[in-house]
């Protein structure tokens, strides 16, 4: 009781001292909720490129049209856009439902950040992602953590905020798990593509429209995201080394053999059944009109 009172006081203080943080969508907030899943400013590549100094590299007009609809720009044959698209594994940047003013806010934020941040090119092994409570990094995740991640993924454990389980839309090839949904991309090798940090960012702060809508009001907690990323890393490495057993052929073959067995057994049981008309032979002989 005492504790909860303390927490609520802290919360109340936060609430009162940083009203902007909660009420206005300033440039940094917009960046966090819309871009951070795939981009950093000086933090190195994630899904998409590091955006440090992007405002100096490109014109504002180009950035505006790319952010609004990257595909339109690519389809129109813009050289830079096509090169960028090819460089980043043809991962499509989703169209952003942002007003011009909002985009400008974001760009202003990036310009500001670019001045302070220094470019680093780190090999992402997930060291930077830490468990929010016990402080363990993803690289240190053990079997239990991975299992917890798996259980979150397949919905054995519900997400704390009630979001839908990953398996309803995504598939991951895993020996102990049934096939997942086909509505969204297969996540088996997604860590190779995005890196653990990218995946983690995508989970905590979804960038793609469908996922964004799904988790808008029931976001995944950092703790859950940690376990899920751990699981996806494991699934990724297992799959890369060919550990995953593909069971779809097994199912088909067992089904085939099982039905053959049933046909034989029931054929035997019903062998004595009346199978055709008692007049069959007589009728077969009769001459039929054309």
């Amino acid at each position, binding site marked *: 009781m005492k504790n909860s009172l303390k927490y609520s006081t802290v919360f109340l203080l936060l609430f009162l001292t940083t009203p902007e943080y909660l009420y206005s969508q300033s440039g940094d907030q917009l960046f966090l909720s819309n871009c951070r899943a795939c981009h950093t400013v000086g933090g190195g590549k994630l899904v998409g490129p590091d955006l440090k100094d992007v405002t100096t590299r490109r014109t504002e007009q180009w950035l505006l049209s790319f952010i609004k609809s990257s595909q339109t720009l690519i389809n129109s044959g813009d050289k830079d856009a096509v090169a960028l698209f090819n460089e980043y594994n043809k991962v499509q940047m989703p169209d952003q439902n942002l007003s011009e003013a909002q985009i400008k806010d974001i760009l202003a934020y990036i310009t500001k950040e670019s001045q302070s941040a220094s470019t680093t090119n780190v090999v992402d092994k997930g060291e930077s992602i830490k468990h929010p409570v016990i402080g363990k990094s993803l690289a240190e995740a053990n079997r239990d953590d991975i299992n917890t991640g798996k259980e979150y993924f397949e919905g054995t454990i519900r997400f704390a905020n009630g979001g839908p389980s990953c398996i309803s839309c995504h598939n991951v090839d895993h020996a102990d798990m049934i096939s997942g949904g086909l509505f969204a991309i297969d996540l088996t090798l997604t860590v190779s593509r995005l890196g653990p940090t990218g995946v983690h960012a995508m989970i905590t702060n979804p960038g793609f429209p469908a996922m964004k809508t799904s988790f808008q009001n029931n976001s995944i907690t950092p703790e859950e995201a940690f376990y899920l990323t751990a699981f996806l890393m494991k699934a990724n490495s297992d799959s890369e080394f060919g550990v995953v057993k593909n069971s779809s052929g097994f199912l088909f073959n067992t089904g085939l053999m099982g039905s053959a067995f049933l046909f034989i057994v029931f054929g035997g049981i019903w062998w004595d059944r009346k199978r*055709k008309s*008692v007049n069959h032979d007589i009728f077969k002989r009769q001459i039929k009109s054309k």
Partner: protein
Amino acid sequence: MDIRSQVSMVFHLDKCIGCHTCSIACKNIWTDRKGAEYMWWNNVETKPGTGYPTKWEDQGIYKGGWEKNGDSISLKGAGKFKGLFNIFHNPHLPVLDDYYEPWTYKYTDLIESPEGDDQPTARPVSLITGKPIDIKSGPNWDDDLSGSPDYARQDPNLESLSPGEREAMFQLERMAFYYLPRICNHCLNPACVASCPSGAIYKRGEDGVVLINQKVCRAWRMCVTACPYKKSYYNWSTGKSEKCILCYPRLEAGLAPACMHSCVGRIRYLGVMLYDADKVQEIAASDGDLVQNQLDMILNPFDEEIIKAAKANGVADSTIKAAQNSPVYKFVKEWGIALPLHPEFRTLPMLFYVPPLLPVMASISEKNNKAQSEQLDPIAKFWDDQWLYDTSTEEIWGSVDQVRFPMKYMASLFTNGDEEKVKDVIRKLMAVRIHRRGKTVGDIDSVKVEKVLSDTRMSADTADEIYYLTSLAKFDDRFVIPPAHREQAFEMLEHTSDMKGATGFGFKEAPSRGM
């Protein structure tokens, strides 16, 4: 004792001429409807033959009737567990080809065809699909065809006969046959009632008529499988099963069922018999002489004790009186010359048959005539088969052992293989003829007549009675229908005194006097 009354029937096969009038009368009244065209609640079969539906007697195919199961009996192809396992496909059902595809002809083609080189013909059209068909079979397709390899020789009852005996049956220009008219037997232990998963079939309390409640029937068709006589039919149009109702609306009005009323040969008799319903299960599951056991169940309506017990059980006085006058009781119990059809199905059928005597012109038997053949000149014509067609009978009636149809065949139909029992009935029938011939023609020695009667344990009076009921009986002698007491039934439904003192019939109209 649980004494109930049962309307039962006797068909005298010696008198059946196979005219199918009964079938037509029945069809015109009851089954001339869509979906019922193929149903023949009454049909007449030629025996030996496979009947309708084809081979209905072969329960190896159709799994009808009861089978003995320890001390009790169980349904062969239906019932609680077998029925449940088979409820959605019911593999033993006869298919339409086991019956026949009903058809009519496109008669309008005869008068509406354009002028051409050929005569117009009326094409057969299926009554099920409405399309032109090749007629493959009909309800009496093997009518009058006793020697046909397709039908007569497939008769399931021939299984008990040796190949020689079978051959003998077909030798007489392939013309030895008789007719077997069949309707629902209104059994005392009906397999159809026992098999119905919906409980739609019931045996009427007052007269034992077995009926299907069309409102309760759910088209499981278990009754079609269960009835060993295949007298329950499925109406594909209404999705309900139907069967012979023994013309109960006619019975209640005091009229004989249509098939019986219309019978040209007057072969049919109908009357009430009293039986002990407590014994049904015991008798149906009994060993030994099934026919005798069934007859033992039928009670003497003159016995004071039985009359008392019957009255206590609600059997009306008029019904007891009808039972006393019942021609069926006389044929079945008093004289013992009527037998149930296929008692081995254990349904205790209440339609009895007087087996055909078949006047014996000659007999045919399998003889070793090798010695005789050897005496013939090599160029002489001789038959290397072993048949002896013997016309040298001592009596004009021949002897019972020389009747055309082997006793085994008749026994397979009527007595579950007991040849002596059929022989006894045939002997009695013959004794009546010898007695009457002695009386009317007078060319038979009276000593012989008396010996024949005493051999068959009959008095001359009994023989005369049998003769009367067989040959001279009037309508009211053949059909003793108990009053249905419909007025009492009415009183159970309505208060007949409600209208007492009311102002007559018709609609109430206000007087119009220009007011």
